[in-house]
């Protein structure tokens, strides 16, 4: 699908659906040990209200891994090979302490015309995690940022379809940084590839914010040009 508006960082609802299918496919191709993303159709709206996105992406029951260990590995203490071997999508079960698990939804916003990440954490027994418990699970850099911008970065909002509070990454800046990310690919890929690459690119940034690392080869799988190296080094 050729994107109608590749340069401003936004997506139309149909482009979102297309990009979602591409992400699901590429995620599976990378043989991540995480569950696959699944597509959940939106509840039908009354009186013919169009909902062209038609649904949202869901990744559920992901056990939280110990972010601190992850931080050490990625930032300092191990060689590149050792880091690669981790293939960060792993679930390092804490053993002594209880592990939390998370559900992630990627939902299209008609106001911002971009995907928005919603997530919710749970105890082993299914009880939702409280705010401070979730904050402890976030990567260090994120929780620091959260301290500085408490109300505009990650907030608890009502889930668009489920009538209960979920955490969400505020989408107001998304189109701007997506525009920059996509521009790198603009000159080296076919326009059709831009749309299918959108969510992969988006997720590789957003996932890092909350500590859900995409399989390292997700980006490699989806790009065939050298711009992928530049892309990786930026994120």
């Amino acid at each position, binding site marked *: 699908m050729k994107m109608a508006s590749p340069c401003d960082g936004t997506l139309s609802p149909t482009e979102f659906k297309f990009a979602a299918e591409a992400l699901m496919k590429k995620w599976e191709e990378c043989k991540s040990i995480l569950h696959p993303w699944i597509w959940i159709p939106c509840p*039908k709206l*009354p*009186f*013919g209200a*169009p909902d062209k996105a038609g649904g949202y992406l869901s990744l559920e029951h992901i056990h939280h891994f110990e972010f601190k260990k992850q931080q050490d590995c990625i930032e300092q203490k191990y060689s590149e090979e050792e880091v690669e071997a981790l293939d960060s999508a792993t679930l390092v079960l804490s053993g002594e302490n209880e592990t939390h698990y998370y559900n992630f939804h990627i939902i299209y916003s*008609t106001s911002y015309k971009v995907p928005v990440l919603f997530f919710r954490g749970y105890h082993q027994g299914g009880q939702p995690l409280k705010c401070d418990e979730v904050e402890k699970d976030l990567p260090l850099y994120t929780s620091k940022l959260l301290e500085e911008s408490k109300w505009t970065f990650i907030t*608890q909002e009502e889930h668009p379809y489920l009538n*209960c*509070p979920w955490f969400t990454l505020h989408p107001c800046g998304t189109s701007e940084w997506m525009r920059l990310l996509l521009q790198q690919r603009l000159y080296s890929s076919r326009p059709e590839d831009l749309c299918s690459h959108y969510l992969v690119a988006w997720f590789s940034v957003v996932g890092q914010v909350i500590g859900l690392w995409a399989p390292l080869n997700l980006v490699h799988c989806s790009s065939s040009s050298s711009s992928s190296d530049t892309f990786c080094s930026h994120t």
Partner: protein
Amino acid sequence: MDGSEAKKYVWEGAIPLQIHLHESEVTTLPAPPPALVLGPRNGYLPLLIPLIKPHFSSTLPPGLDTVWFDYKGLPLKWYIPTGVLFDLLCAEPERPWNLTVHFRAYPSETLSPYEGEDSVKWSFINSLKEAAYIMNGNCKCVMNMSQPDQLMLWQSVVKGDLECYTRIFSRLKFGTIGEGRIPVRLYLRIVSEKLNDLEDLPPISSWDEIRYINRPVELQKYGVCSLRDALESLLPELFMPKSSMRDLRMREKESGGGPSGIKSALGPDDFEVIKNTGDEAEQTHNIASTEVDSVESSCLKLIRIQGIEPNLDLPFSWAANHLKNPEHILHICLYILNNESQI
């Protein structure tokens, strides 16, 4: 009623509230009488807590306050403006509106956390950002607000000070409502066809009974001009005569098409018929009209914006400009008849 009068009318609108403390939290005898407060339509229930709490503080059980309100058992979403909650949940307007306040046992599984006035302030600012993005394609005008301006804008909402609000808002360069995308939030309440009186409507017991649609109206795309046109662009089948709806559903089943099959199922003549049933209404701009067009033929039983039941021929941009809430969003409550073809 001209523009500035309408705005003043909206800003001064308030709901008389009678707030009862939940019986589980009453520790003294006799139980304290309810608190009587005026809740500004454009305000939010938690902002009234400083007025309410003194009434009950001596009777509360020990512990930390986690304030929330309910109406007939339904926990109220604190980020929805008071006036919208009233228009939506109180089918037959109750004066005063009887609400229950709780200071304990916050329903955190259903309601987003409330952490004091800042929660409401930031919910307001994030909504304002969303409205700015919808209209301008970016939220720069809000992001670039100085801290003092942001604080003053919020205070003008808390105090209901229209003059101060207008002064600061005009500095924002928000953009005018003329064409392009306009922020709208629809709250749909589905009612049974058999009901004759709004008073007989059973109260809402769960938010699952309300369909919420947060979707901008796009002006150029559909050549929208009236309130009816705007609603139709968001809910295309809303004004179809019920008989046409049944025919449409039958034709869809025969042709094997779903909702997307509307265009092929209806011919150009069908659209003429549908449009004409609305034109019988009086062509006035009287916003206080109590008549709702096409009530008999379509599924729309009631429309409420800022407590008014507006004439559907009202120019949409006028409605959006003068009836919007301070965060620049037009909230519309619709009571819609349950048609067996609608799920």
